[in-house]
Each structure stands twice: as structure tokens, then as C-alpha cells.
């Protein structure tokens, strides 16, 4: 049975698109047929991060409006087998997504895919609501700062009361906390909240802690999801998160300040 996972946050710029790309790719690497859908109509940057922006012909809105069929709009990833992207439209406005239309497309995808990863836009407006409405699981992406944590708390409340599962009284949406852009040095200095602080406030299960990393920037500049950079700290942290998502128990890494060796201290690291 296909699972719909929404990557959501409330706040913008916390790493939803980066995480959607990494998690979708990670699931496909594990052998699950996976599609990542860009719900950020009008902005469209999942395709940039996935490096397929020049291959976009039709998009999510075209499919909803019946202007193309799903197979025409789905972009097959060239690096990872079983990975597909359904891009957003750059030209339409956000109202182009209707609940019926989204449900129709999701139901069609469910027949064929194991995982459907929905990259949500920021905010709690219609677009974000649409991305989370049909979710079975939610990956609440949060930065270790007060405003991001509050917005995530708000999103959790909405998932609890306004998702399809909530409205139909089904088992509630499974919630995961993904802490991104974690900077142990700034946590140590008290400039950022710690993992414990965030967990105490949000009180949901921790799926992963992704460190603030130069590798994310290099990866997105080259149109490559960071999880494919298996040498990098962020790439490894996303892989750990995938393993936890699939039920494994994995120790958390990259939580503490790295003790710099003499070499690094002299030449910078």
C-alpha cells in the first residue's frame, strides 16, 4: 500500500525542499518506487535541486487540469532507478490546486508507487494545507530556533485537526521530527536551541538531525540531492533518517562540536 509523506514546516527556508529531495532519493535507493511532488506552485525549485529543470515539459497543474496525463508529466531520475519527480508549475497561481484534483492524481500515483513524498510550500495557507491534507505521515522540518519551532507546533495542531485522517476519524497522521541546519557550535554558545529543547516543546519522535553543512549548498548548486554525496555529513545524516523511517534503530550523529585537530585548527576546516 502506497504511503503519502508530507515534508512540512510552516516556516520557509528551513530545508523542506532539500529534505524532500534527499528523502525521496533515499527511499528509491532502498528499492522503493518513489515520486516526489512539488506543491510549491509558482516557485518551483524541487526540479532545480534534483537537477531536472531543463526536462520539465508538463507539470502537476497540467495533470490536474487534464492538459496532460501523468506519464507525460512525471520525470524519471537519471541517476536513481525507481525515482520520479512531478514538478510544479512556475506560471500558475496557487489556486490551481483543487482538493479533488490533488486527490485524483494521488490516487492514480498510489496504484504504481510505494512512496509519494510531498514537498510543501511554506505557510499555513491553501497550498500547504493541500500538501498535508492527504498525508499518512508527516516529516515536520524544523530549525533549532524559536520561530521555527513555534511554526512547527502550529503545523502539528493543524495535522491533528484538519487533515483527511483527522476529519474522517482515522488513525492520526504519523508525525516525525526532522531537525535541520543543526549547528552544534551555535547550540553550545546558546545561540540556538538544542535537540533536547526542541524535542521537549514539540514532543514527537525524532527522525533525524541534519547538520548545517557546506555539502548541502554544493549539492543543490550542482542539481544533486545531498544524500547522493555519501561522504558528506549531511548526506550520511539523511541516510540515517531514512533507516529510522524504515523502522531501524540508528544512533544519532553530528550532535556535538567536532574537536578540531591541529591541522584543521591551523588551516581552518
Amino acid at each position, binding site marked *: 500500500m502506497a504511503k503519502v509523506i508530507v515534508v512540512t514546516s510552516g516556516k520557509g527556508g528551513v530545508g523542506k525542499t532539500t529534505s524532500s529531495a534527499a528523502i525521496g532519493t533515499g527511499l528509491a535507493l532502498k528499492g522503493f518506487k518513489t515520486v516526489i511532488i512539488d506543491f510549491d506552485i509558482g516557485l518551483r525549485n524541487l526540479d532545480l535541486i534534483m537537477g531536472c529543470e531543463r526536462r520539465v515539459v508538463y507539470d502537476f497543474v497540467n495533470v490536474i487540469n487534464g492538459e496532460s496525463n501523468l506519464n507525460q508529466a512525471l520525470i524519471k531520475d537519471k541517476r536513481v532507478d525507481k525515482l520520479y519527480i512531478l514538478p510544479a508549475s512556475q506560471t500558475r497561481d496557487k489556486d490551481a490546486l483543487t482538493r479533488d484534483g490533488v486527490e485524483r492524481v494521488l490516487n492514480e500515483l498510489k496504484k504504481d508507487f510505494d512512496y509519494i513524498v510531498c514537498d510543501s510550500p511554506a505557510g499555513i495557507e491553501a497550498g500547504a494545507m493541500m500538501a498535508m491534507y492527504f498525508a499518512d505521515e508527516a516529516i515536520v522540518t524544523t530549525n533549532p530556533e524559536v520561530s521555527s519551532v513555534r511554526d512547527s*507546533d502550529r503545523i502539528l495542531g493543524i495535522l491533528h485537526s484538519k487533515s483527511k485522517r483527522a476529519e474522517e476519524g482515522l488513525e492520526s497522521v504519523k508525525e516525525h521530527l526532522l531537525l535541520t541546519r543543526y549547528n552544534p557550535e551555535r547550540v553550545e554558545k546558546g545561540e540556538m536551541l538544542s535537540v533536547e529543547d526542541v524535542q521537549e516543546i514539540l*514532543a514527537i519522535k525524532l527522525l533525524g538531525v541534519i547538520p548545517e553543512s557546506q555539502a548541502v549548498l554544493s549539492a543543490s548548486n550542482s542539481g544533486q540531492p545531498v544524500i547522493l554525496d555519501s561522504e558528506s555529513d549531511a548526506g550520511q545524516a539523511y541516510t540515517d533518517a531514512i533507516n529510522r523511517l524504515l523502522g531501524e534503530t540508528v544512533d544519532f550523529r553530528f550532535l556535538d562540536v567536532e574537536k578540531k585537530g591541529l591541522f584543521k585548527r591551523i588551516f581552518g576546516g
Partner: protein
Amino acid sequence: MSEQIFELKGNLFTLSVLHLFSADTALLSKQLDEKIAQAPKFFAGAPIVINLSDVQDEALDFSFLKSMLSGLSLNPVGVCNGSQEQNEIAKAAGLSVLNYSQDVKGATAKQQTNTSIVEKTVHLPAQVIHGTVRSGQQVYAKDRDLIVIGAVSHGAEVISDGNVHIYGTLRGRAIAGAKGYNEANIFCQKLEAELVSINGSYWISDSLQGEHWGSAVQIQQKNDSLEISALVKG
């Protein structure tokens, strides 16, 4: 054509019923005044239905009765169990005639000669919330206690007409005794609230950040102000 801007539908409401055992309005006024003095906030503006089942044969001046009740800051909205004649006069005085099937003839009450208010304490079980009340959410436990087994987040609000019990951290707003009840309490395991309010007295975060900040507390109303004490003493 413009869109319809209203919706009309039936609903059930709780109204207080003033059951008269005598038509002596002067005595009624005096006794009611005493009764209300015991809990003025509870009765303030309360919608009242006058039950006439035991005074059906009496001549009552409804205009006078109405203004007398209004003067006690009650809000008379209708009558029930009156005679045909009483109903007509009541209607003319602007009161609604309501159907009421229970207690049509209070057999024992008949023997009482003076007016009294029958007050029933109806016990409603507490409302229990399992899990965190999140930012942007509001919970109102009407006419009952509220128990939260979890935290109340920043930007969340919990309200109760009775006590508020929070088995977790209170970071948002908690309001107890919302309809006026000076014995209401707020209990929480960790006080980090944005606002606490009991029976109209309130404190915001700034005033709460004293010795009890971050610990388990009980908050009560004392002399029209609030008092915070440690929940676990010693």
C-alpha cells in the same frame, strides 16, 4: 444575486428556570436579591425562563416581573407551563412561550407557601485532552473542569468554567473559572505561561517570572488578585 449571509438552524441551549411557588412579587424580589448576592457573576445576564406551573391561577403582572428581573441583572426570555391567559399576557410583555414537559405539576412544591429557587448542582465529568494542545488551538471545557495530559504550547489557549489541570508544561494561556467562579484553580507541572486568568483576574508572563517560574504550581484567586503557590511543598 448576492450570496445569503446567514444560516438559520435549531440548537439546544441551557437556560435557568425560575420556578415560582407564589405570585408575591415583592417577596420574590427580596429573596432573589439575596440569592444572587451569593454569586453575582454566575447570574449576571443569565437567560431565565419563568415556570408558571404552580401559579397558573394567579394574576401576574408580567411587565413588572420582567423589569424586576432585569433590575437584578437577569435576562428574562420566556415563560413555560402558564395558563392560556398567562401566555397571552406574557407574549404581550415581549416574553416567549416555551414548551416544557417535565415538572409540569410540582406536587410537593404546591404545599410550600413562600417562593424559593430550586438549585441543582449538575455534575459534569471533566473534559480530558490526551496530548499537547498546540499553538493556534483553543480548548474550552464548558461548565466543567479541563484536564490536559500533555503540554499547552505557546500560542495555545485552554479555558474552563471550572479548574484547569495541566500534566505538563503550561507555555500558552490558561483561563479557569471563565464564567465567574472564584474558587477555580489552575494547576500545572511547569509554569512558563503567557497568561493565566481566574475569574477575571489575570497575570501575564512578566508578572509570573518570579520564584515559581518553571516549577509545579497551583494558582488561585485571593482578594481579587492571583496567588501562586508551589504544588509540592517542602
